[in-house]
């Protein structure tokens, strides 16, 4: 069966879409599927970010191509932005600083945000209680669940660990 979009290549993906309550299935070739942003086994294998990255670069906002294809290499690990596009993986923490403008666009598109709202890491040795709070809260939560589950042996161990912290 030929691809129903281009009519040239063989269809390898069947796409079922529900339009106004009616399911419709079309057969597509790999390239046309990728253009519609559908991941195929082959595209996923090529890069973990699969169709997402290629779609992102195709639909880049006008006026921002340079920003989305930064030149140069990361001084931390030697990786280029092209390496990242090929593998879907950054080489080190420094890459986030070197390629920040491009990554910022990517993060906003993928996660809908660039701001972390979760727990914050406090480097060991920093004089602050931040990470101890997370630890105590976690142990208290485990203790409550252990008591609810009537696992008193675990509860006693958790109580000892909380005492060590106090």
């Amino acid at each position, binding site marked *: 069966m030929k691809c129903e979009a281009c009519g040239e290549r063989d269809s390898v993906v069947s796409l*079922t879409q*529900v339009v106004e309550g009616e*399911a419709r299935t079309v057969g597509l070739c790999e390239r046309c599927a990728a253009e519609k942003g559908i991941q195929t086994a082959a595209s*996923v*294998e090529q890069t*973990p*970010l699969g169709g997402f990255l290629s779609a992102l670069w195709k639909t880049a906002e006008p006026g921002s191509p340079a920003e989305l294809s930064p030149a140069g290499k990361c001084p*931390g*690990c*030697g*990786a280029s932005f092209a390496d990242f596009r090929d*593998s*879907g*993986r*950054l*080489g*080190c*923490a420094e890459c*986030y600083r070197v390629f920040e403008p491009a*990554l910022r666009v*990517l*993060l906003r598109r*993928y*996660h*809908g*945000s*660039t*701001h*972390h*709202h*979760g*727990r*914050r*890491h*406090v*480097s*060991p040795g920093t004089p602050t209680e931040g*990470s*101890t709070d*997370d*630890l105590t*809260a*976690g*142990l208290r*939560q*485990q203790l409550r*669940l252990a008591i609810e589950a009537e696992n008193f042996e675990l509860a006693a*161990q958790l109580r000892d*660990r909380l005492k*060590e912290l106090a």
Partner: protein
Amino acid sequence: MIDLSLVSDGGIGWLDGSGPQSHLVLSTRVRLARNLAGHPFPIRSTESDREAILSEVEDAAAAIGSLRGSASLRLDRLGRTDRQLLHERHLVSKELAAPDADFPPKTGSAVLLQGHLGTMVNEEDHLRLQGLFSGLALEAAWAGVGTLDAELGQRLAFAFHPEFGYLTSCPTNVGTGLRASVLIHLPGLVLTKEINKVLQSLVQVGLTFRGLYGEGSEVVGNFFQLSNQTTLGKSENELLDHLGKIVRQVIGYEEQAREVLLRDAPGVIEDKVWRAYGLLRYARAVSFEEAMNLLSGVRLGVGLGLIPDVAVYTLNKLLVFTQPAHLSAMAGVDLAEDELPTRRADYVRRTLDEEAGRRP
């Protein structure tokens, strides 16, 4: 062969079916991706980087309560079947298990395990902290993994960015680094053909679904892994609450679908589940995929109260122990591909004979 007696419960405590909703939800997993500051991520790391990271992590693990007495298993020093066995138990990812003979595990690939908790080392990120719990147990899993993270974070400097949060090799994990997945059995929705609608709506609310073995794996036996898609912009608790809320809705839909099946086609369903049970009880050769599908039918029969006296634990155990590396481990030799179907059928018959009641 690997000595899993060093690992409490062999790392499969979650099989016992003791958790909430365990008739539908097999397990809950929470993982956190973490990297050590000052080292390149694994994709760019050298052998000595990897060794250094593993030794830093082992030192930290020895000093914290969550991993006290943990077993440390180096994948780069295990044979293929042993690595595959750990993967079949959901204790390491396929990437870390490296089952393909042409791409052996990289130096320093390891997993530290203690009870429900553990961490993979030198996987896609330096650390993948993980907790695996029976049933729908997002709160317990987060309490365990969150504590492990806080304890390790007091001893290890993690790569952390003030705006982006925890830095990960793949930007899809950045921020919290948290992926929570619930492994759920949805035969009712598959049989009533409602499943696509449900899966499509999951994607619309920011969740994703995968097969039994996570990323890239196929859906077999009507088991779906539902998890959060994004990791940045929401707190850990917001991500977990959202997933939990949606999973409870999906459970509701599955229960409705089962009521519809029992109401509209009771004879068909009863025949289907007993046929599955009959095949498992008497067949002499069963492929893995067939076993998964038959076990799905029996699990549905047990859930509907049609098949008595088969425990969820027995079904969970069959799911794990009918896989190739487990069959080889029980046989004490590496079994050839063509020996597996008969060995599998033997094991299933024996287990059901010992553990399941007979038809009243």
